[in-house]
């Protein structure tokens, strides 16, 4: 019966071959470590956000006069409304944790390199879309920080050449953030996740064309590939379960950790909070914005700090495949970069002050220096490696024989 049903479908729709090509026979390198599980996790969180979002939207009211109250209604009156809301608010932060780890893995192992540029760029686009969704979603509770965060960030669009003022009004639907902004942000916040889903499909089609990279950085021969299912489905599920435990600790015991105190006060256009901070996932970029004394320069630097990742396939000029594993200088730069981003995040959360501004400027300088120096470092690193004698593992991989790749 089951077989006949599947036959019936297969004559009309490529179900079996799709499952075979993309799961049960989809070749995956057998040496992937747990860092390769974050893409799967990001997909899971996307689904979680969409599902919880749909249920929140059933009770939420996108109206400047009602929004704050409707969130309280969800938290108090809706059955398990608090759970849905905290899943969504904690999920937003978890999304960025996962995405940033996913990006860090890509950078460390050089997964952005040819032929995976389109994957990297579609990932970049996904990051921008997720940031947009998160930013617009943060306005919806209509608390003080929601309101003033949106005010500050929409104001950045004043930097648009020639039509800056009009762009800001067009974004807000008003001269300042107000009811019109809230309703359009709600509409877009509901739309963007579906765009994200679409680009995830593109990201996956690209992945299934070029296949996964792996820690060695080399394209492993067929005999080192194993089918995605069941090996990576079970490995990813295990990784996901571990992550979900941590997620639930925050969700059930520290759900207010990611919610600013100020956001428990309804938005008030007449009262500016003493210290406006964006959500933690924007802090490094916010620090870069503030590090440049000039408004226009700051906005450009902030934009560049996000878009510069797209240039990575060209900035990395090494001729040896892979990333930090075989390359000591690249590895060092990677760690400096990670520390630098953490410092920027800290600086972004602090109120402006003499010392903190200088720290922010130095960290911004280091941030961009790393990208600027990368072409030279990667070029000279290659020569240094050759001169010094390649590491055994790298030599082995280049010879592609008899060494244990895994």
């Amino acid at each position: 019966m089951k077989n006949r049903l599947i036959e019936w479908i297969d004559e009309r729709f490529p179900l079996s071959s799709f499952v075979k090509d993309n799961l049960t026979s989809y070749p995956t390198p057998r040496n992937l470590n747990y860092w390769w599980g974050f893409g799967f996790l990001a997909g899971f969180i996307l689904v979680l956000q969409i599902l919880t979002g749909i249920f929140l939207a059933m009770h939420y009211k996108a109206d400047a006069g009602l929004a704050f109250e409707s969130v309280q209604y969800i938290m108090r009156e809706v059955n398990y409304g608090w759970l849905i809301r905290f899943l969504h608010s904690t999920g937003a932060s978890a999304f960025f944790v996962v995405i940033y780890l996913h990006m860090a893995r890509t950078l460390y192992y050089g997964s952005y390199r040819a032929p995976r540029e389109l994957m990297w760029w579609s990932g970049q686009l996904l990051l921008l879309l997720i940031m947009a969704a998160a930013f617009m979603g943060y306005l919806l509770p209509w608390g003080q920080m929601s309101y003033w965060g949106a005010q500050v960030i929409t104001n950045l669009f004043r930097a648009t050449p020639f039509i800056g003022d009009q762009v800001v009004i067009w974004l807000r639907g008003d001269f300042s953030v107000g009811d019109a902004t809230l309703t359009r942000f709600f509409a877009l916040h509901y739309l963007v996740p579906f765009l994200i889903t679409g680009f995830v499909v593109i990201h996956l089609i690209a992945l299934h064309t070029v296949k996964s990279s792996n820690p060695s950085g080399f394209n492993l021969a067929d005999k080192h590939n194993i089918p995605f299912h069941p090996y990576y489905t079970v490995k990813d599920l295990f990784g996901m379960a571990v992550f979900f435990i941590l997620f639930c600790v925050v969700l059930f015991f520290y759900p207010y950790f990611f919610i600013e105190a100020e956001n428990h006060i309804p938005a008030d256009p007449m009262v500016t909070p003493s210290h406006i901070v964006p959500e933690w996932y924007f802090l490094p970029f916010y620090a870069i914005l503030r590090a440049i004394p000039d408004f226009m320069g700051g906005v450009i630097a902030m934009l560049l700090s996000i878009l510069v990742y797209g240039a990575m396939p060209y900035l990395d000029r090494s001729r040896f495949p892979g990333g930090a594993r075989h390359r000591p200088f690249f590895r060092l730069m990677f760690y400096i970069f990670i520390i630098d981003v953490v410092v920027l995040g800290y600086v972004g959360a602090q109120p402006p002050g003499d010392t903190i501004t200088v720290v922010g400027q130095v960290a911004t300088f280091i941030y961009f220096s790393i990208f600027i120096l990368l072409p030279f470092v990667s070029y000279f690193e290659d020569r240094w490696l050759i001169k010094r004698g390649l590491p055994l593992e790298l030599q082995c991989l280049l010879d592609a024989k008899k060494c244990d790749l895994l």
Partner: protein
Amino acid sequence: MKEMIAKVITSIVVATACTVASFTAIAASPSPPLLDFTIDNSTAALQRGAELVQGKCLLCHDLKYVKYRHLADIGFTEAQLTLLRGESGLEDAVLSMMDSDARQEMLGMVPPDLTLITKARRGGERYIYSFLLGFAETAEGTATNRYFPGTRMSDPLGISYVTDEGERQVIYQQAADIVAFLSWAADPHATERKTIGYYVIAYLVLLTVLLYFMKRRIWRRLDDE
């Protein structure tokens, strides 16, 4: 365009200067460290807190997201609720005895709503507790608050003028009960949330262990090759 950039820069500079100024102002008069206490989540404490809030806070403050019906969750019986709510209905919000206009006229402002107050202040419950006990009499004989100099609220519990140690202990207890109730009001599902949390995490740990063994078992197939 240039003019606009100049405007924006000026406003940023002014804003920054203001922020810096306000922070140095705060730094100049450092508030004392917050007082420590343990929140008693027992029904008795919450009920005492609710009655104190009704007696001391509701004159000027609202708890507009709390309805009288919700108070049944902290163990008030129907008879007790009838007594508490007076003319208000069970579905009515717990509001001040004065309407907003009257308060605006009398106090010059509508005091902040207390429903979320323990979440809306940095320091949370400890801040509110410290604030309630932070009133002290100055040399001029007026009351000020160590944690919020310049607050327009007057000392609700009398900590600034009561000197008898026994009575002061009562006030400490009252402050703790009020904060326990306000903490419940801000996050009424906290207890339920934590209980569910333990079950969910226990389940997930079990699931994770099982997945780990499943993973090991499936991957062992590769060793045979």
